[in-house]
């Protein structure tokens, strides 16, 4: 079996508590602060990576080079951009609801931070581990739409209002499909606990073991997930050719930066959850009967497995964005309510039948 990060964190906990003799409450506080710092670090590093990654991928699709001036291969471009956003002025607007206007970006960023906490980063490397992990993730991701609605409403601008209303309608609708496809996979796993879902894919990933229903659930999830993150072809809330920048038109400086970061991190979270539910989380690729192959796969650290899988799924979502034109709002709603949702419900029934009759691999 692979190395579990639980050993490391356990050892650190014992070091603080027993060897150094720090009281229990202080130990917990220190650990929480360290975890918080670690999360922030991971968050910003991932955001930097994604900005660079998307720009390079998009450039390749468009026969361009992408960033190539700042640093070798343009590697420092994302850092320069981030720094620029940090030092930019926050423009104060009149005629806005100041409190809600300032609150909105934090709601968005908090929602994606909370989701971050339940992702299975590696074997034993998980911040919150409790029996309704997946449920918690769904709940947290719904907070984000509140931030977007508030942003559009409090800006006191017709464009942002239309963007926010579009966004509200879109995200609330597509959350249904995400929820249904997640429930489908929870049925297969038999648990909502994140580490247990990963363990259940020990011998084979769900996308393979779940037969047709798992495949359908994955397709529904990836479409709904793209819509949930407001990315093309579902980027109506910020459709730049129609609404300039949609709900975040009036934001500047770091407040805009929060929306910008949250979009990329939501991309990672959607990919991460897809990895968890369909591609075994941090679990290496195991094929039943191929003992030698499985042993080789186990040599690759679990954290690399997780991040690599998530990035590959993100690549697919980025690919969508730079290929397809944008949908119209009524077509978007029709896609969800007339196609994805009925198919998802039907698929849920199919999955229960598959499980009941034991047709899984």
């Amino acid at each position, binding site marked *: 079996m692979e190395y579990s990060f639980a050993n490391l964190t356990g050892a650190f906990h014992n070091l603080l508590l027993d060897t150094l003799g720090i009281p229990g409450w202080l130990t917990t506080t220190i650990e929480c602060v360290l975890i918080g710092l670690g999360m922030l670090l991971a968050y910003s590093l991932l955001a930097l990576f994604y900005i660079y990654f998307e720009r390079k991928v*998009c450039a390749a*699709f*468009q*026969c*361009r080079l992408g960033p190539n001036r700042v640093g070798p291969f343009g590697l420092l471009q994302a850092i320069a951009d981030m720094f620029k956003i940090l030092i930019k002025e926050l423009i104060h607007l009149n005629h806005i609801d100041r409190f809600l206007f300032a609150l909105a970006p934090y709601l968005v960023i908090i929602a994606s931070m909370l989701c971050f906490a339940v992702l299975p980063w590696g074997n034993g490397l998980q911040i919150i581990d409790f029996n309704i992990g997946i449920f918690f993730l769904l709940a947290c991701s719904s907070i984000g739409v509140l931030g977007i609605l508030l942003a559009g409403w409090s800006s006191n601008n*017709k*464009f942002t209002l*239309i963007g926010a209303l*579009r966004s509200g309608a879109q995200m609330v609708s597509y959350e249904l499909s995400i929820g249904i496809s997640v429930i489908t996979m929870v049925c297969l796993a038999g648990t909502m606990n994140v580490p247990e879902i990963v363990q259940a894919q020990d011998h084979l990933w769900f996308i393979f073991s779940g037969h047709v229903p798992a495949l359908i659930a994955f397709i529904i999830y990836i479409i709904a997930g793209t819509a949930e993150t407001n990315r*093309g*072809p579902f*980027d*109506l809330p910020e*459709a*730049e*050719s*129609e609404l*300039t920048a949609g709900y975040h038109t009036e934001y500047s400086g770091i407040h805009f930066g929060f929306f910008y970061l949250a979009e990329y991190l939501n991309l990672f979270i959607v990919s991460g959850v897809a990895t968890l539910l369909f591609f075994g989380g941090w679990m290496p690729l195991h094929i039943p009967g191929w003992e030698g192959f499985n042993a080789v796969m186990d040599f690759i650290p679990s954290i690399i497995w997780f991040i690599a899988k998530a990035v590959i799924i993100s690549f697919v979502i980025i690919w969508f964005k*730079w*290929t*397809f*034109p*944008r*949908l*119209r*709002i*009524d*077509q978007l709603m029709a896609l969800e309510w007339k196609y994805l949702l009925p198919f998802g419900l039907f698929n849920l029934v199919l999955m229960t039948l598959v499980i009941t009759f034991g047709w899984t691999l």
Partner: protein
Amino acid sequence: MANIQDTIAKKFPAAAFAADNSAIPQITIDDANLHSLALCLRDDCGMDYLVTIVGVDHGQSLGAIYYLMSTTTHELCSVAVSTSNREHPYIHSVADVWHIAEIFEREVYDFFGIIFVNNPDMRRLFLSIDWKGFPLRKDYDDQDPKLNPISIESERQSDFTDVYVEKNGKVVKTERAIFQPDDFVVNIGPQHPATHGVLRFRTAVDGETIKKIDVYMGYIHRGVEKLCEKLNYPQTLHFLDRLDYFSGHNYHHCLCNLYEKAAGIEISRRAKVIRVLMDELARIASHCLFIGTYCMDLGATTMLFYTLRVREQILDIMEKTCGARMTFNYPCIGGVMQDLHEDFVKDVKALLAVLPANIKEYNKIFTGNVIAKNRMEGVGTLSREDAIAYGVTGPSGRASGWACDVRKTRPYSIYSELDFEECLATEGDSMARFKVRIAEMEQSARIIEQLIDNIPEGEYCVKVPKVLKLPAGQWFEMVEGCRGTFAIYLESDGGTKPARLKIAPPCLPLAAVVDHITQGSKIADLITIGGSLDYIVPDMDR
């Protein structure tokens, strides 16, 4: 034409007949009979397409000349009306006969102050509402800085428009609200990514559904027609690159043809071939940009780069020969400015070699895409009748099934010798407009293929007098620009400067029709429709 003259002469004894120097018959009529004459011309004589209305100021009288065209016989005729009352010049509106007259009459009102009775929207079109005077009148003093000082306040605008109606034989001014009192009006433009320039749509929406659009233009109005009256003939050419900046070659071609006809200059065949080659290259480049920006409007950003690749290649060819990538300023009176670059033939052949593969790629990525189909098919449908009534020409008109290509209907230069097809569609929706443009690129390539190996030897520019004087008279010339019919009316008083130069661009009708075809669509459809009409704001504003 003779039978039209007979019909008119029978019904309207007051009508007088003449012909201008371009051999276009002109009917002179008094204002009282104008409306019934217009109806008769449209219904009985088949003159269903109003090309433009030219406002004229002859000192004693103000007047308007209506240029009409038949969509079946392609004959042109003009109707001249004038009024001697300079204080309160009234002419009856023909906006109910030809829809597009509504906006053309506003333009005449803006520049000449002629009030069109019964026009439902008698506002200024390009100038701001507090503008004093009518700039194209000959007695307007444009050197007086106190008359219209530069305002440092935000531009005022009105939610009301004037309508002049007749009551008991007197003309009365009434007011009409543009929007309903409880309309939610969103300003789309003048600074907006989808308006392709500074054009402003005041859009009344109900949720995402569009109820009414008030098109507000004039942000790039530079008064080209007024400027031309102060410059001599060769100098006026330079403005034409700055209207539709993609059709610079075609527009130059039009004005050069007109001046050459008026001055009796015969140009060499080499110059003719070069002009046609450049026109068609410009057309391909323009349609390439259309496809790219249109797809970008719909959210498919990647397509822009694929189409710009071809456009770059064409601009490189232009740069070598004309010395510029925009505002080429290439055709001149007597021919073209410089001879072709030595690489021209080789470069054009390289372009022709890559073009089919590129068009195939565009269709593969975009045209067949299910989202693109959903966004474009059945969106912004314009019927053939409406296209004619609104004067929507060019690829947009042809997508509605109206064969309006000037290269076919009234062939100029060497187009009658060339073998190409006019691309038509019947659907009239955004998808048809998109596909017609792709098809036109192929046809333009076909024209270039026929000419590129047969560029005759000869001089590229014949000798023309240093100071060009045109005889007194009036001329009218049309060409096919990249976006539709481009026409120029010239009135000369025998001097070295035009007495009146009226430019009739294709983009003004394209913008005027937006309100009609967007009603009931979604906001996103406005971008689809606007993009598919492919208007250029400097072209409509001039």
